[in-house]
């Protein structure tokens, strides 16, 4: 051990705070070093002086001031929105019991999150957006599959207006629905049809009207976006009694691909011809090439026109509705008691049906929520236990 090392260790040596082997070394050095012995003595005196220092006492009212500050702090905290929110939550309050983060707490928190996600999913299952129209979808899909195109209903996924080339591999189906409906009042049904078409983002392309034997009837052609086709069919059918219905889907995917390929080829051919024409020097050659260019261009126009037509057909499905008004029953003179009874009966049955429907929905919802409620109770119990444990541990 050098003299310098020994000097830096004197302080700790004085406090007996050195490990044994170092203390021995310092002692050995002190044996032979009078200056270090002197320094140690002075250090000891210094420390004694320091220890003599009169201890201070906290000023008068110190504890009271601390208390005042803490209380003021708690008050301020109570007024902050964050604390109010925390106080509103059952598991936390400003200075109340504290939750210790343990695996139990974490598990309880995870359970709560899972229950939340589960609930959202269940609710979405129980009450899908779109209401009644969507609920009836399966029935419609069945009809479509009868026609033999069921597997292709997904083709509707093609967004309207998508460029033909972009999604050439997607199924392209022209969807058509035809139905005959008997309605109570023709005028009301007609205006509803316009509303349905517009509501679905489409339009009424064609309508005709005639009256036979005082009974009005008419044909309406609705063009609606393919994606809304099923929805529109359901809405139209709700107008009255369906007497006939035919839904068909014509798969034109191959024709689409074929047309697109041909257009591409012709365009390339046209480009080549134009290049040739630039280099042609003899008049007959020029004329021949020009004739050929005109033919190719014409062909391109024709094919693109066909493509455009088909895209339109695919994007916009067609619903043709033949609407006829129910022929009025021979009225029994001044007051048709049968008709009144019939109306009463219908109204009564409708009410009963609606009530049953509501009850059914409620029952389904309760059934959907039951497991969630159980999980919540179990999770809450666990959480309470974890919290109590945390308190005891604290």
């Amino acid at each position, binding site marked *: 051990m050098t003299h310098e090392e020994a000097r*830096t*260790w*004197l*302080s*700790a040596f004085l*406090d007996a*705070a050195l490990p044994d082997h170092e203390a021995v070394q310092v002692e050995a050095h002190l044996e032979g070093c009078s200056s270090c012995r002197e320094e140690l*003595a*002075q*250090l000891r*005196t*210094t*420390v*004694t*002086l*320091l*220890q*003599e*220092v*009169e*201890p*201070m*006492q*906290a*000023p008068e009212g*110190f*504890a009271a*001031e*601390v*208390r005042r*500050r*803490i*209380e003021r*702090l708690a008050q301020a905290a109570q007024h902050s929105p964050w604390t109010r929110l925390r106080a509103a939550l059952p598991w936390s309050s*400003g*200075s*109340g*019991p*504290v939750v210790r983060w343990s695996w139990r707490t974490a598990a309880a928190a995870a359970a709560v999150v899972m229950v939340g996600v589960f609930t959202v999913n269940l609710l979405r299952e129980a009450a899908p957006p779109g209401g009644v129209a969507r609920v009836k979808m399966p029935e419609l899909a069945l009809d479509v599959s009868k026609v033999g195109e069921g597997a292709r209903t997904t083709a509707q996924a093609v967004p309207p207006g998508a460029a033909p080339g972009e999604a050439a591999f997607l199924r392209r189906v022209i969807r058509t629905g035809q139905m005959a409906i008997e309605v109570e009042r023709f005028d009301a049904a007609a205006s509803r049809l316009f509303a349905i078409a517009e509501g679905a983002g489409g339009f009424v392309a064609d309508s005709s009207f005639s009256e036979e034997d005082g009974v009005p009837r008419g044909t309406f052609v609705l063009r609606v976006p393919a994606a809304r086709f099923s929805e529109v069919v359901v809405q139209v059918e709700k107008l009255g009694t369906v007497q006939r219905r035919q839904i068909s889907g014509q798969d034109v995917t191959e024709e689409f691909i074929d047309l697109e390929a041909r257009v591409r080829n012709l365009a390339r051919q046209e480009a080549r011809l134009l290049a040739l024409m630039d280099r042609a020097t003899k008049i007959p050659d020029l004329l021949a090439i020009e004739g050929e260019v005109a033919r190719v261009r014409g062909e391109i126009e024709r094919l693109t026109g066909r493509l455009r037509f088909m895209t339109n057909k695919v994007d916009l499905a067609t619903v043709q509705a033949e609407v006829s008004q129910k022929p009025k029953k021979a009225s029994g003179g001044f007051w048709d008691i049968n008709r009144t009874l019939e109306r009463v009966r219908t109204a009564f049955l409708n009410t009963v049906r609606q009530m049953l429907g509501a009850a059914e929905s409620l029952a389904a919802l309760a059934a959907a929520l039951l497991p969630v409620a159980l999980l919540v109770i179990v999770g809450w119990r666990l959480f309470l236990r974890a919290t109590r444990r945390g308190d005891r541990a*604290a």
Partner: protein
Amino acid sequence: MAFDERDLINRSRAGEIEAFDLLVRLHQDRIYNLAYRITGNREDASDAAQDAFVRAYQALRRYREDAAFSTWLYRIATNSALDLVRRRPAHQPVELSAEYRAPDDPEAAANRREVTRRVHAALGHLTVEYRTAVVLRDLQGLAYGEMARILQVPLGTVRSRLARGREAMRAQLTDLVSAEG
């Protein structure tokens, strides 16, 4: 100790301010003393010590019983005092200490007052690191291990800071040291 400190801590945690008030009264002198020696004047000492207790109250739920409560409190107080010193470095800490215990021997009391004054003035010339080490060890009587915990530095650092601090004190108090030795 007349009060069960653990019980007081638990009750304070539950929000019982009476219990914490007792804890403050139990520790206020030592904490104030520490703050006074580090900051060098009463105003700052009072601020730092109060800050320390308020912070302790807020952090009480984070206090684990793996260290003594007083050590934990010391750490908070040391940091509060150091924060204050670093924030107001211009403030010159020269002030006479006027608090005494009942002086039974007037001459000894006068002597002690002089020593206190000189030590206090000398402490003011040390860097905060050395000063804190000397105060914690020789004025507050803490062990090296506790100091390491409070200052959050290794034991070796405590040792060397203390050695340098004491050496600086010795150099400043040479006349007193020779007179007494």
